[in-house]
């Protein structure tokens, strides 16, 4: 175990070394920041950055946007996927449309979403814009692209999960007295659950990438993607690189959080053939 950790640390240490050497060689903090200056930013997550607030504030905005947009994607994607997976006729109606939209990268939607939703926020929608709450920073356009990015993996994996329920399990349940409703609840749903959770993991990963891109667009006022763009404009490269580290860490945390949850729900699948 210890030696595994040691081996795993080799590459990151080499990268850090190469980075530090390049920084010393470039000798220009506006181009390549020193490792130490980035680390100094990282150890103060609550310190104000360029008058825009702290890392924690920006991360919080990004995370809340992703959580809301992705929750909407899940609330629509899972039930719709269960329905489409179960009913062949619905599948014939929905599939061509989905196959048309699916290859359309969510990032391509960002300018369109910005144009349609402008800078309208959730606060505007409910008419309490002039009190400063987090809702004033939840732009509908951003929520839309997160929703779009998260929806397809969730939906498609759910459909796949429902369709790969073993026939023998369905027949066995019917032969033990299950009616349609009980069959769905006791066989289809638990059978499809591992695939649904895979969809959630993939979807959340995509949503987290999409939000960073969305926050880089004009009209954005907060969030970790915004912080990256803003520090780029002010040539604050140490903040920029520290923000990148934050993106990686938060993305990993989101994925790990969902994994704990999903391992608990689909523990049985690991040993199944």
């Amino acid at each position, binding site marked *: 175990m210890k030696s595994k950790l040691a081996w795993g640390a080799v590459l990151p240490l080499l990268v850090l070394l190469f980075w530090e050497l390049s920084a010393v060689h470039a000798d220009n903090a506006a181009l390549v920041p020193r490792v130490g200056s980035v680390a100094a930013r990282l150890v103060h997550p609550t310190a104000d950055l360029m008058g825009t607030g702290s890392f924690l504030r920006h991360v919080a905005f990004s995370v809340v946007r992703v959580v809301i947009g992705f929750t909407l994607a899940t609330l629509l994607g899972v039930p719709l996927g269960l329905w489409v997976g179960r009913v062949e006729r619905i599948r014939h109606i929905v599939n061509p449309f989905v196959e048309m939209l699916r290859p359309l990268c969510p990032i391509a939607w960002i300018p369109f979403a910005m144009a349609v939703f402008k800078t309208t926020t959730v606060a505007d929608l409910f008419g309490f814009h002039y009190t400063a709450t987090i809702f004033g920073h939840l732009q509908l356009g951003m929520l839309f692209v997160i929703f779009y990015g998260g929806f397809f993996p969730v939906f498609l994996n759910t459909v796949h999960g429902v369709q790969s329920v073993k026939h023998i*399990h369905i*027949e066995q*349940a019917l032969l*033990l007295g299950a009616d349609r409703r009980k069959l769905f609840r006791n066989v289809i749903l*638990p059978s499809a659950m591992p695939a649904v959770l895979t969809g959630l993991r993939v979807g959340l990963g995509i949503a987290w990438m999409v939000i960073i891109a969305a926050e880089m667009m004009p009209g954005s006022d907060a969030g970790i993607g915004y912080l990256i763009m803003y520090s780029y404009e002010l040539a604050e490269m140490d903040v920029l690189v520290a923000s990148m580290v934050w993106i990686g860490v938060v993305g990993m945390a989101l994925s790990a959080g969902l994994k704990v949850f999903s391992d608990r729900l689909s523990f*049985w699948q690991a*040993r199944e053939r």
Partner: protein
Amino acid sequence: MTRIELNQVSRTYENQRGERIEALRDVSLEIDDGELVCLLGPTGCGKTTLLRLIAGLESPDAGTIAIANEQVTGIRSDVTLLFQQYSLFPWRTVLENVAFGLEMKGMARVDREKAARQVLAQVGLSGFEKTYPHELSGGMQQRTALARALAYQPRLLLMDEPFGALDDRTRHRLQAELLALRQRSGQSILFVTHAIDEAVFLADRIVILRDRPGAIEAVLTVEMPRPRDRQSAEFVALHLKVRAILEGIIEQPEI
């Protein structure tokens, strides 16, 4: 009365190349209440099809099937089928698997778990209630499936080569357990197997099918008292007789 009557049942499939395969032709058979009938025959003789028809999973193209004087039109709540393997729900514990049928019937948790524990004890799986199927050996999985079918208390139990994938020792134990359990519950059993030894050991009556098309070749009543001794002259004689009939089927030239 849970008498099963098959009257001139035929079933034809179309395979992927569009050829018509006659799985069963004019099969007529009666199974008495509480009788244990073994279906024996070469691979592809329609044994499984026959079970699926009786279970109501499929319908015959011609002929009728009646259980307790009622036409079979679909799955019935007093009939269940035990598959060859891999039919346990992997997301449920052994206890939850065994209680499944009772849960579907709407029995309260306390009652169905009590009943499931009793059946588990009967098949020798006490102590494995909280275990998941993937943690069990093949024999124990099949025993759990048997317990699940028995806990459901069907009046007719259809079994499709349930012990086929098991080693001899486990199979012999489960055969003995099945007979003991039937003694108590008294349901009718239609048991499909390809092992002559198994049929001779278990059956009140052995029905031998031939293939292409699947049809009844012979019906033998087994009068031997139980428990049957596999080494006895009577057992061996019947074994040889059944084997001779089966070999006759296989050696027949194809039409």
